[in-house]
């Protein structure tokens, strides 16, 4: 019963953060420097990860589907499968999960350490809203940076699939690329590009939320960082499911 009450309490607190975030949207002008710094950190530090994540997803997708398609003599469909799979699903989800780990852990541990050393209380005591000062710049930075990073993952993924298709299934490079790009319809692009915004928003707000409620010294900090990564990842998987379901049924 207390677990249930705690859950309700968590949702309530999380809701308050979202409310503060929205009500403070105009104060982003005062935190533009912080936002740029966060954007730079997300972009520069996550880029190698996203390149690797994207490349290997594409490669594996091509190998697995290639062998299945070969049974039906349909290896020419690899390009379609890889590009649709990357743009709609794997690109956003792999990028989301990598960033949930990287950005999520960073936000939560940074803000958590600030909380433990009274820096958050200092902000409040001197009349600043910690959500405006800390959560808003991080969330805006995530909203801006997640799309380009996802795009990069998509492209490297298709590129990786193309190499495998050429090397293992003897499909011509230029032909692969053309069919891969032509297979993408407006709907696919919409799905693939909308996801990063939702993922970015929830990764940022969830991890900042866990940072802000840190208590109980270093053990608490560790626990909250784990929670931040775990919950952001779970939310990404659930959101992805909801998205996919809606897209197949409604659009």
């Amino acid at each position, binding site marked *: 019963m207390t677990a249930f009450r705690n859950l309700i309490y968590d949702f309530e607190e999380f809701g308050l953060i979202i409310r503060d975030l929205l009500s403070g949207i105009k104060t982003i002008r005062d935190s533009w420097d912080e936002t740029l710094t966060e954007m730079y950190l997300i972009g520069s530090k996550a880029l190698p990860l996203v390149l690797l994540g994207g490349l290997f997803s594409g490669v594996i997708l091509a190998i697995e589907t290639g062998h299945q398609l070969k049974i039906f003599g349909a290896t020419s469909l690899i390009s379609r499968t890889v590009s649709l799979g990357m743009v709609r699903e794997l690109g956003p989800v792999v990028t989301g999960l990598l960033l949930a780990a990287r950005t999520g852990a960073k936000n939560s541990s940074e803000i958590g350490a600030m909380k433990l050393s*009274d*820096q958050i209380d200092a902000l409040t005591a*001197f009349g600043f809203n910690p959500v405006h000062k800390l959560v808003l710049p991080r969330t805006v930075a995530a909203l801006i940076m997640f799309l380009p990073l996802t795009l990069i993952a998509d492209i490297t993924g298709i590129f990786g699939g193309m190499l495998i298709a050429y090397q293992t299934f003897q499909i011509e490079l230029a032909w692969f690329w053309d069919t891969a790009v032509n297979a993408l319809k407006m709907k696919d692009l919409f799905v693939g590009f909308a996801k990063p915004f939702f993922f970015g928003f929830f990764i940022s707000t969830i991890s900042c939320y866990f940072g802000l409620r840190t208590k109980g010294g270093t053990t608490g900090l560790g626990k909250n960082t784990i929670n931040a990564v775990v919950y952001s990842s779970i939310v990404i998987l659930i959101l992805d499911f909801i998205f996919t379901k809606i897209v197949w049924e409604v659009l």
Partner: protein
Amino acid sequence: MVELKNISLSFGEKLILENVSFTIENNLTTVIVGPSGAGKSSILKIIAGLWRPDSGEIFFNGKDIFKMCESEYQTMRKKIGIVFQSNALFDSLSVTENILYFLPERKSLTDHELKEISERLLNFVNMDGTGDLYPEELSGGMKKRIAIARALAFNPKLILFDEPTTGLDPLNSASIIELIEKLKESGTTSVVVSHILNDVVELGEQIIVINDGSIVESGRIEKLITSEDPFVNKFFYRLIKHDRIMKSSYNMYELVNV
């Protein structure tokens, strides 16, 4: 300036403060003393607006702060600064950036004016030339002085100090106490939480003794060392003993010199 009336606070079942009432007079240094866990920091957090008490009233210049409208409340908040027990400096920012962080008019000043302000504040706390350092490069006493400079940039009428001298050597403690005295001269009222008897004697113009969340005695030091209350007696025992030694050595001195 600030009046607390019947403030009570509890966390769950645990009573932290019970019916705490006292007044912080303009330009009179108030020292709050008591053992660890007595609720001293909690009182400061309530005055600083970080925690809301379960019951009781707080008046700022005669106005009930829980009945103020938002803008009135914000204006009032800008008159109160706080120096945390842990300093709470922003560790990702340099000393200068820390000091200027809470400066209300920061956005409208030129870089040159900002530099001037930070240099003036660093000079006030005897930390000239440290502006480019980061908090982790400072010693405990230096951090404390930067935290004071940061609170001063806010230009408050009232500053709350949570154990400003705990963990500092006698020289550093003395310099912090001097700073608080210097502030008084410039018209800033201080509330100092401490359990160091020396601070109490040097700073306390009004001393509040708190134990287990309630006030057991308050007044000037002369009143406290002659108090009948057994807790106050025990708490100030060393001071009382010291006082007697001073008196008896003075008597000896008189005897010898007669």
